[in-house]
């Protein structure tokens, strides 16, 4: 058994006060100056530690308040209230919701799994991955003594290609090419976010995080600095044949990625001859004919296919379909062709929460890229001001590489622990065996109609309550 893979996390404080869902409004006017003021009774000592953060003009109490409402409910003059914070509600968009962003901040800061009491507060189901539940097993499963207990759950996956079988010559020697794979200890690869105020320091921090985690950081070759030689084995350079001179690309990369276009066959051959020891990855956009393109690539022996969805977790050419459906379609096509086990399917696009890593794999991916979460780990509020050339409110570009790496390691560490939680509950001890295991999942589309489709009809003479 391999050594246990553990991600070392350590608390890494924020540079800016995080936005909170609600704030305290405390009026001074009309105060009775009670001998025992409700502010002094605060269980969390919020009012004792209040202060103004002059850089952000934020009062510290909002970030310390735990919403117990006792002061609101006890002040004899009703001078204390809580109100929703419009800045918080305005963060992100329908896919990158304020709650997702705030939870990613928490994980990047603490390295811990988000835990809360009092049951599940969210919607019944939702679009995309939210229309999926993962299974659990009542009794027959790895025993659990906490997630790092006695029984090891492996999250390692292989990237690359493996032949369906070996050929032998007459002397009994192996006559065919063996597997060409590179294993990573967890099915998560870092990837340059689609936008963001990242500086060279930021990128260096992400590369450092990839190395500490033992995974890869995928970044356009043009943004790889000569001084990053030490990170070489942890990088997946994204080559652009229109810009990059392939002859001059350093030869020590283990994986190189290229975008798909009409001339991909020629470039695949060229890549193979220029980088005989590297694995070639081709990126195809998640659109209507993605299955066909993936089939063509796999048929030609491309070891790694990267299926790229939109940043909103949907297909690139339609809002009505989600990454989940795209992965299932491409995976099934490759299974039908009988070559799914011989190549690797990586996916990207809108992966925002740890559960989506497990769900992507259940749908048929080998591993996922995460991009925007790398930025959110650095306190990004997904305001997208940077895309308009406006300054970043949390000055991401000014963060030091070590801080960046530490925040990202914390985030991925928390995700890894959550992956262990769901795998353990499913009774899966090896991430490689989770791929395509839709039997370990439940789908809204199927269950909802099956359960509710045959209830009473709304007819004349009836009313609903």
């Amino acid at each position, binding site marked *: 058994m391999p050594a246990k893979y553990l991600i070392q996390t350590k608390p890494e404080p924020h540079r800016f006060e995080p936005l909170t869902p609600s704030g305290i409004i405390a009026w001074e006017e009309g105060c009775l100056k009670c001998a025992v003021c409700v502010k002094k009774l605060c269980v969390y000592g919020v009012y004792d530690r209040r202060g103004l953060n002059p850089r952000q003009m934020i009062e510290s109490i909002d970030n310390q308040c735990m919403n117990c409402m006792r002061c609101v409910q*006890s002040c004899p003059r009703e001078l204390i209230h809580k109100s929703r914070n419009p800045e918080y509600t305005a963060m992100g968009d329908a896919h990158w919701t304020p709650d997702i962003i705030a939870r990613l901040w928490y994980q990047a800061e603490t390295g811990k799994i988000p835990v809360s009491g*009092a049951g599940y507060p969210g919607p019944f189901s939702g679009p995309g991955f939210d229309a999926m539940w993962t299974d659990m097993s009542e009794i027959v499963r790895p025993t659990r003594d906490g997630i790092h207990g006695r029984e090891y759950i492996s999250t390692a996956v292989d990237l690359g290609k493996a032949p369906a079988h070996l050929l032998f010559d007459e002397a009994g020697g192996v006559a065919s090419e063996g597997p060409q794979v590179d294993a990573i200890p967890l099915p998560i690869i870092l990837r340059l976010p689609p936008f963001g105020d990242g500086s060279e320091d930021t990128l260096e921090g992400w590369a450092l995080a990839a190395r500490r985690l033992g995974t890869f950081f995928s970044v356009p070759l043009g943004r790889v600095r000569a001084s990053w030689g030490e990170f070489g084995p942890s990088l997946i350079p994204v080559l652009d044949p229109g810009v990059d001179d392939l002859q001059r690309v350093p030869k020590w990369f283990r994986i190189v990625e290229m975008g798909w276009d009409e001339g991909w066959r020629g470039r695949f051959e060229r890549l193979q001859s220029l980088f005989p020891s590297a694995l070639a990855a081709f990126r195809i956009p998640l659109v209507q004919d993605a299955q066909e393109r993936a089939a063509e690539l796999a048929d030609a022996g491309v070891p790694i296919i990267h299926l790229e969805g939109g940043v909103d977790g949907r297909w690139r050419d339609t809002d009505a379909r989600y990454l989940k459906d795209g992965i299932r379609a491409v995976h099934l096509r490759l299974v039908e062709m009988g070559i799914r086990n011989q190549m690797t399917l990586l996916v990207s696009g809108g992966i925002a929460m740890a559960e989506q890593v497990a769900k992507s794999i259940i749908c048929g991916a080998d591993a996922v890229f995460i991009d925007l979460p790398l930025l959110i780990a650095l306190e990004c509020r997904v305001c997208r001001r940077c895309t308009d050339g406006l300054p970043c409110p949390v000055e991401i570009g000014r963060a030091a590489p070590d801080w960046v790496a530490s925040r990202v390691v914390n985030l991925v560490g928390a995700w890894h622990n959550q992956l262990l939680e769901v795998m353990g509950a499913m009774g899966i001890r090896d991430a490689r065996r989770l791929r395509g295991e839709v039997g370990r999942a439940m789908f809204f589309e199927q269950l909802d109609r099956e359960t509710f489709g045959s*209830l009473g009809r709304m007819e004349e003479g009836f009313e609903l309550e």
Partner: protein
Amino acid sequence: MVRTPSRFRNPIGKYRLHRTSACIACGLCVECCPYRVHVMRRERVEVARAYLCVGHDCKDPCHLKCPEGALSLKRSVDFDTLGDFRWTPDLLASTWHMAETGTVPPGGLEYRTGAAGGGFDKLRLRFRKEGGSTAGGGAKEERSAPWPSSSGARKGETGCPPRGSTWTEDGDGVDVGVELNRRGDHAHRIRIEVPFYGGGMSYGSVSITTMLSRVKAAALLGTFCCTGEGGYPDELKPYDDHVITQVATGLFGVREETIQRVRIVEFKYAQGAKPGLGGHLLGDKVTPGVARMREAVAGHPLFSPFPFHSVYSVEDHKKHVDWIKAINPKALVSVKVSTPTDVDMVAVGSYYAGAHIIHLDGSYGGTGAAPDIAKKNIAMPLEYAVPRVHRFLQEEGVRDQVTVIASGGIRTPHDLAKIIALGADGICTGTADLVALECIRCHNCESGRGCARGIATTDPELMHLIDFDWGTQRIVNLFTAWRRELVRILQRFGMRSLSELVGQTDCLAHLDYR
């Protein structure tokens, strides 16, 4: 029923009434308000109980009637910071209303469904319109109704307050009780007078006062309450006949003596909030008292492993059930499981192993701390699991031999009626009890000293925020209101007993498939 207001000076309501200095204290608002929001004190009028205001549902709005225009109606900003998709601020406030008054809110609050956008919140009870035939969707025959109309029931004119600990079929002629032993074996014959009992909350996760309030309320309501897995405190002894003791994977505080003391023993294989994950009591909450009860060391976190290390097959499970029956032959055995894809097989397996009660715990409930990823993603919603189990047990021909209890996210009497119509015999409550004790679902039960409102804490100072009698009465009131509302629902279906509703899916409609 005893009116039991909030223990806080300023209860949170949906509306706020603002009175300007233009008020001439004419008292018109005091007269016109049926909800006693305004009070005349020393020739001044005050907004004394704004939380009782029904806002725009008011038939005679004071702020429009005021001759001086001194009153204005606003939505409370505090109210809008509360709640979530499942427990909307409206559901929280209506539960508080029920816990205070024993009746459903007269208006202004949506007390029947939440905003989760699926499952319970898209299911509706499907009644025949009044004035037409009186038979409900699922009822087989027409009946004339010898009871008051539903509007009467809503005002609290039907239903009776609990008398002692037996509370059956008073006046309204509708039987909402549930027989728990359907195997007809030599074990206790136990009937609960309301179709719910209290779900397990351990000593340690909640305070002893919370625990006692729940158990005493259960005794008054003629039902049961489960200890959870933290042992069986001696304070519960007077209520032994209404206690279910839990045997969970950590076996904390489980002794022969505790198993022999009760009439129902519950095996907890999994719990809905963290299916497939063990329990975890943080070190902070392991006070000397908790440690003693659990036979552990104070200050150290306690893991309740998953699964039972002694059960790896259905045969092992039978051995477990037999073990309880050997120690206490008269005990009913309940088996609490979560809702995996094969929940139907699990239920049948439990039946053949000798269980009297199959308890399905869905993923929306749970009162203790759990990883968010588990609560949201692992195992199927209760609304899918119950009909699946009901059908499977029917096909197996054993449905009438076993009691199916559902739990995990049942928030209202409407949720209760819906899950019964989907195939359960009864339910367990948990979060609703805590909301009755004025939990506001801040989700911080696990951090630091525990619940700042004194409900889920073992901190000696915070624990005293709740008075035992107050807590008991709040829970009794809440469930009195639930019972009345359930009776009203059954009457509208033309049913005389809750058992008629079990599995009657044509009493329901789903907004997406009507």
